[in-house]
């Protein structure tokens, strides 16, 4: 005993340093090599400490703190690591809120560190004081304020553990300026792998697995719905094997997109509001619905009171609070998808569902005829469509790029028509639908995967929400391709006004600047395409260009996205026109 004690005392050598230096050390020990942020008064000691560790940790200064959060999100989505942001107190901290909310809804692991006014000034309405812990409570998985240097390592260790474990999410650590300055003795950093009140990984229930397998094995018309959980749990192999062994058609939510290649014969397309015809209609015809790591968002279910009522529902989910939240599960299978799928694989029979798959093909043919054909190959006298642009991008990049989308019509089109060949290749704002997400998120994605092609697909509206992040591309030379689909409208809102507000176009007309000049101002190569004949060539130039490139394509102003499930309608009432 004695020996052990002295040994552990020996390894626990203490180092004296400031709280700020300790924080930076903790980040390095957590494996952080890249972080995104913006300096200011209350976080200056940390920036000073970063200056000493420039060779170990790269700080990317975005042009707005919101940009830092989305960049960290893009980074996290592609790398699977925790995205990290840094901001000052007050306005710096409040600028993080949109990104925190986005990461909370889309279960993105993120740690945001904010500076706070000195402890003795808290509560006095000091300069740049905001109660960010209260403000961010509703949009974080966990948050904490640290007022003493010695408490920093513990808080950081917990923050990283909570952000990445269980259902991942954003965490905020608010550190007072005096705690950053304060010099203390620090022991060797220890990561956290357990919190006594927190059960990130529910234990698999053998009974639930058996019940699920029984249902799956006896199903005649089963349908798999897959979401972000498949990607988050790294269940690439398990999921594909499960789909192939059971022979069950699988449809994706936009957060699950790219967990199974688009061209996979059992991939039957997109669910929800602008999803494909077949999987939506057949949701209300299947006999067993197997939801894998998805949470039945209302954009997926339409009217829940008329959603899959005929089906037995199996729900593979890590978060107990999601079970029966929107859709009742007959067989809830609590656990990490990767583990549940692996366990189920041994219990399900090898099968084919050819007849059932024919139903998908029939409905696909209808969608092809009514929607897709014209979207991908418009008549010569029609303006360019977003769909045809994406088709060329998809062909020329061979489906190998990481597509980062903003929010609106172009988002739906990119996800519907890009043929994703690779795992984790779709980065989008799903739950919050945050315009302005794509540009910074694409920057983050490229930092996470420097050897992959990263294409941001953005509308003329959303581009202008975080356009200042072109400054990051300018400064760091990060090779992000920007595809601007310009319809001179807030397209998605215009579509709703067209369909549901008697075409009363209220505040959707975009009076746009000269985007080419803006790109030039930031030293980014660019071109604008207005004619179909030049489209393919320009896409080749765009994708082959060394370094970032802005390709602006003028597309049909009043094209609408179909199919569509109008709000309040049932999935089986999806409209083709």
């Amino acid at each position, binding site marked *: 005993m004695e020996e052990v004690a002295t040994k552990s005392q020996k390894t626990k050598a203490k180092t004296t340093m400031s709280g700020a230096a300790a924080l930076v050390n903790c980040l390095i020990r957590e494996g952080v090599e890249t972080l995104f942020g913006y300096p200011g008064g209350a976080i200056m000691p940390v920036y000073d400490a970063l200056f000493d560790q420039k060779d170990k940790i790269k700080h990317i200064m975005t042009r707005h703190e919101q940009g830092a959060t989305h960049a960290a999100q893009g980074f996290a989505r592609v790398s699977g690591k925790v995205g990290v942001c840094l901001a000052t107190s007050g306005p710096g901290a409040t600028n993080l809120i949109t990104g925190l909310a986005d990461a909370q809804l889309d279960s993105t692991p993120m740690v945001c560190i904010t500076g706070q006014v000195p402890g003795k000034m808290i509560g006095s309405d000091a300069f740049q004081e905001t109660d960010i812990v209260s403000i961010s*409570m509703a949009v974080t998985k966990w*948050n904490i304020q640290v007022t003493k240097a010695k408490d920093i390592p513990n808080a950081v260790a917990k923050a990283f553990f909570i952000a990445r474990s269980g259902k991942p999410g954003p965490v905020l650590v608010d550190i007072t300026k005096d705690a950053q300055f304060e010099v203390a003795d620090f022991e060797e950093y220890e990561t956290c792998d357990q*919190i*006594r*009140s*927190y*059960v990130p990984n529910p234990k698999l229930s053998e009974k639930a697995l058996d019940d699920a397998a029984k249902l799956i094995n006896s199903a005649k018309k089963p349908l798999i719905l897959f979401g972000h959980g498949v990607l988050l749990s790294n269940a690439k192999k398990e999921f594909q094997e499960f789909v192939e062994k059971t022979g069950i058609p699988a449809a994706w939510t936009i957060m699950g997109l790219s967990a199974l290649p688009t061209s996979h014969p059992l991939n039957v397309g997109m669910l929800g509001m602008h999803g494909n015809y077949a999987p939506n209609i057949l949701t209300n015809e299947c006999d067993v619905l197997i939801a894998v790591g998805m949470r039945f968002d209302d954009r997926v279910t339409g009217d829940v009171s008329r959603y899959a009522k005929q089906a037995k529902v199996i729900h593979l989910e890590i*978060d107990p*609070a999601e079970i029966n939240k929107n859709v009742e599960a007959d067989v809830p299978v609590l656990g990490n998808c990767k583990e549940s799928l692996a366990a189920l694989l041994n219990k399900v029979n090898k099968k084919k569902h050819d007849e059932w798959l024919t139903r998908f093909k029939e409905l696909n043919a209808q969608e092809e005829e009514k929607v897709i054909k014209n979207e991908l190959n418009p008549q010569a006298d029609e303006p360019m469509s977003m769909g045809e642009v994406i088709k060329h991008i998809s062909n020329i990049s061979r489906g190998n790029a990481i597509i980062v989308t903003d929010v609106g019509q172009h988002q739906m089109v990119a996800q519907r028509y890009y043929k994703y060949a690779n795992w984790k290749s779709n980065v989008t704002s799903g739950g919050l639908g945050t315009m302005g997400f794509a540009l910074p998120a694409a920057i983050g994605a490229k930092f996470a995967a420097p050897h992959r092609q990263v294409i941001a697909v953005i509308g003329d509206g959303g581009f202008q929400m975080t356009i200042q992040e072109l400054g990051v591309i300018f400064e760091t030379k990060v090779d992000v391709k920007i595809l601007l689909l310009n319809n001179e409208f807030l397209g998605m809102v215009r579509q709703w006004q067209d369909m549901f507000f008697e075409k009363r176009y209220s505040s959707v007309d975009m009076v746009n600047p000269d985007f080419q000049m803006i790109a030039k101002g930031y030293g980014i190569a660019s071109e604008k395409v207005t004619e179909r004949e030049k489209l393919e060539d320009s896409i080749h130039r765009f994708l082959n260009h060394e370094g970032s490139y802005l390709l602006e394509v003028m597309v049909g102003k009043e094209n609408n996205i179909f199919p569509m499930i109008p709000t309040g309608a049932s999935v089986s009432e999806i409209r083709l026109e």
Partner: protein
Amino acid sequence: MKEQFTLSIYTENLIGILHRVTTIFTRRHINIESITASESEVKDIHRYTIVVSSTEDKIKKIVKQIEKQVDVFKAFYHKNDGIVYQEMALYKMPTKLLSQTKEVEYIVRKHHARLLAVEPDFTIIEKTGFKEETQELFEQLKPHGILEFVRSGRISISKPMKEFQEYFTEVEEASRM
């Protein structure tokens, strides 16, 4: 159908958790009827007792969302027949009233209330019981002149015999996996 539910929530003793818990009710537009917080039988673990009226379906979802909070160990809900519960009320009356008439003293006795403090100018009466009981005493004392009245939140103990300590051990073990 709306009914009254009592939630017992066991948490770490940390700043801000109560806020996290109460916002879950706010989001779902559920008014908190009463709330109390105290240390539980397990050292360093706090217990909130929250009374609300809602449907069982909503309460089930809320309990899961509360339990989802990192620093919450366990949350339970009970209908009124599943718990033993009490509230306490204090009534402040002018002392001269009690000395002038026998009426007030009679009411206090009838209700099994007790005198908590008697000062030259005021007297504090204490009564524990169900809300209806403390309310009835209030109604009867009121015509005589109540200077101040306060009622605590509900505290409750559930009837099932499993101790929280057992759950606590379960959660702690599960957290290690």
